[in-house]
């Protein structure tokens, strides 16, 4: 077990997150990641895979996803059709078994990373149907009567947006990490790896506006890390100088290009109203 994750050149990992990933690798337990949207939950799996040089298998869960689809699917319909057309393939059932993401990962010779993305989108029973597979890292194929066992226990990273509660039995088998919204220091580091040539004063000004915006009570959707990065990208593209961001000029209190940060109309209205009140109070 020499493979360790220490963050990458494009992903800033906090100490506790690094520990969580390494503990999950060492003990072979699935890692459940929660956190505000836009804090890089999904990206974590990609960066971990890249960092420890392991293949990544992405399984994006939708409301119609069934646990079985991650293991394998038996395509009975094409077999039936082939039998009618007299195709030779029909005699071997293996031709009609389609491997799922978990099976592919179990087949890998080296340590692999499985990402089960947004598990809370699926039906309530979905996590329960995966208990044994995730615990023992094996499953049984009824059609061919064989048992598939993982050659090497993969690292399973599961993300959830908290739309539904997960069953206790499932949680008991996972490690749980909650990605907190980064503080100003970490945020500076994050922006740094994405925009290494960014000027210091622009970054300071942008972060100040950003954190002030997040503190406004009642925003429907608080801007997150990914929105901040998009916004900075825009600021750079438009070549807006730093002092334009924190000017106390009463007519331009609304930050430039705020559309990248505030994603719905009500929030923009609320923000404008607050700015208006603020201005009136000052007078």
């Amino acid at each position: 077990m020499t493979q360790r994750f220490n963050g990458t050149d494009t992903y800033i990992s906090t100490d506790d997150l690094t520990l969580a990933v390494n503990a999950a690798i060492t003990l072979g337990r699935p890692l459940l990641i929660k956190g505000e949207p836009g804090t890089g939950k999904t990206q974590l799996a990609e960066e971990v895979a890249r960092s420890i040089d392991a293949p990544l298998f992405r399984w994006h869960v939708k409301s119609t996803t069934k646990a079985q689809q991650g293991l394998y699917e038996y395509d009975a319909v094409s077999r039936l059709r082939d039998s009618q057309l007299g195709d030779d393939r029909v005699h071997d059932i293996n031709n009609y078994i389609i491997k799922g993401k978990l099976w592919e990962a179990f087949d890998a010779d080296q340590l692999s990373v499985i990402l089960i993305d947004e598990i809370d989108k699926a039906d309530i029973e979905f996590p329960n149907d995966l208990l044994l597979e995730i615990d023992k890292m094996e499953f049984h194929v009824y059609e061919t009567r064989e048992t598939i066992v993982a050659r090497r226990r993969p690292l399973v990273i599961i993300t959830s947006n908290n739309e539904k509660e997960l069953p206790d039995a499932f949680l008991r088998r996972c490690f749980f990490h909650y990605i907190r919204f980064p503080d100003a220091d970490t945020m500076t580091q994050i922006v740094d790896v994405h925009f290494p040539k960014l000027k210091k004063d622009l970054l300071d000004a942008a972060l100040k506006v950003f954190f002030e915006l997040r503190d406004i009570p009642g925003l429907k959707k608080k801007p997150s890390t990914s929105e901040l990065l998009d916004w900075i990208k825009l600021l750079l593209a438009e070549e807006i100088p730093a002092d334009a961001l924190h000017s106390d000029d009463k007519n331009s209190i609304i930050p430039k290009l705020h559309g990248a940060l505030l994603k719905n109309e009500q929030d923009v209205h609320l923000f404008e109203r607050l700015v208006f009140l603020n201005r009136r109070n000052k007078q």
Partner: protein
Amino acid sequence: MMIDLLFRLRKAQVPVSITEYLAMLDGLNAGIANYDIDDFYHFARLVLVKDERHFDRFDQVFGDYITGMQNAFDSVIGEIPDEWLRLEAERLFSDEEKAQIEAMGGWDEIMETLKKRLEEQQKRHQGGNKWIGTGGKSPFGAYGYNPAGVRIGQKTARQGRALKVWDKREYKNLDDKRELGSRNFKMALRKLRRFAREGAQEELDLNDTISATARNAGLLDIKMVPERRNAIKVLLLFDVGGSMDYHVQVSEALFTAARGEFKHLEYYYFHNFLYERLWKDNRRRHNEVLPTVEFMRTYPSDYRVIFVGDATMSPYEITTSGGSVEHWNEESGVVWIERILEKFPHAVWLNPEPEEHWQRVPSIKITHQLMKERMFPLTVEGIGNAIKQLQKKH
């Protein structure tokens, strides 16, 4: 000692089981987080806590636990004899440094100062800065070479930093202190599942395929049907504020349970009784309201409506227009609730007040009649009966 931590967590209602405890020992055995209190804190939280709502409770218990451990540790440290330190020092210090010590007033005096400094240190747990900060310039700078001295210093420094992590209690907001009853409620609500075939056709309908194929003179004609899913839709309407404050816990438990159980769940709040507006975020109830008319237009009538409220108020708040305590309502609560019941035939009222009291409170009696006797107590049994009522066909 670790078992103690487990029991303390359970006492604080963090749901920890043996599985997690063993996993933690397994991890410690594998060498994760053995020599650093910060790492241990993060690792223990990673393994033992499965929901960010419990982080705050965990932080408190862990803080207590570590403070206890540290007191035990300090008493051990305090007993290290002077001779040990002196021997170590003499072995490690160069002659120049020894001369420097002499210049400072001799070993004994420094020892005294050290003790004083240590006591100070133990009294104020955040004094780590002073200890280390002065380390470079003070006589204790020389101690940097002394393993014993370093250990004392490092311990405090490390503890000081680590303590902050859980003392900050950053996850306080996430704790919703849900009732233990939540699980029981879930089981009761589960009965409301109604499976129906809706949406995309993705399952082979064997019977239909056979008969269609037969009709098709033996050529395969595949028929698909949508899969069976839990298709029940639920609207929860909560009474908040005022007399409902006493029932916050049980309402939260119900909410938690319902959120886990139903895919199509929407919730709104009202105050005391139903009038022309509802809202979703109680803090912003005056800004973001949804007119009840719009509410009735938004949701189709196959939604099940569950009111949660104690229905305890002055009867005028229900029966007369302008009776609301918060605002002027043009039309009385009776009119509004009848409108809603007409639109949503499947509706029940759950009341956290004990059933025995209902007869004594006029407003509850009125509401009970308005609901056509479909008011049930907010208990596991009451929910069970309410669910049966909701399943009836109208």
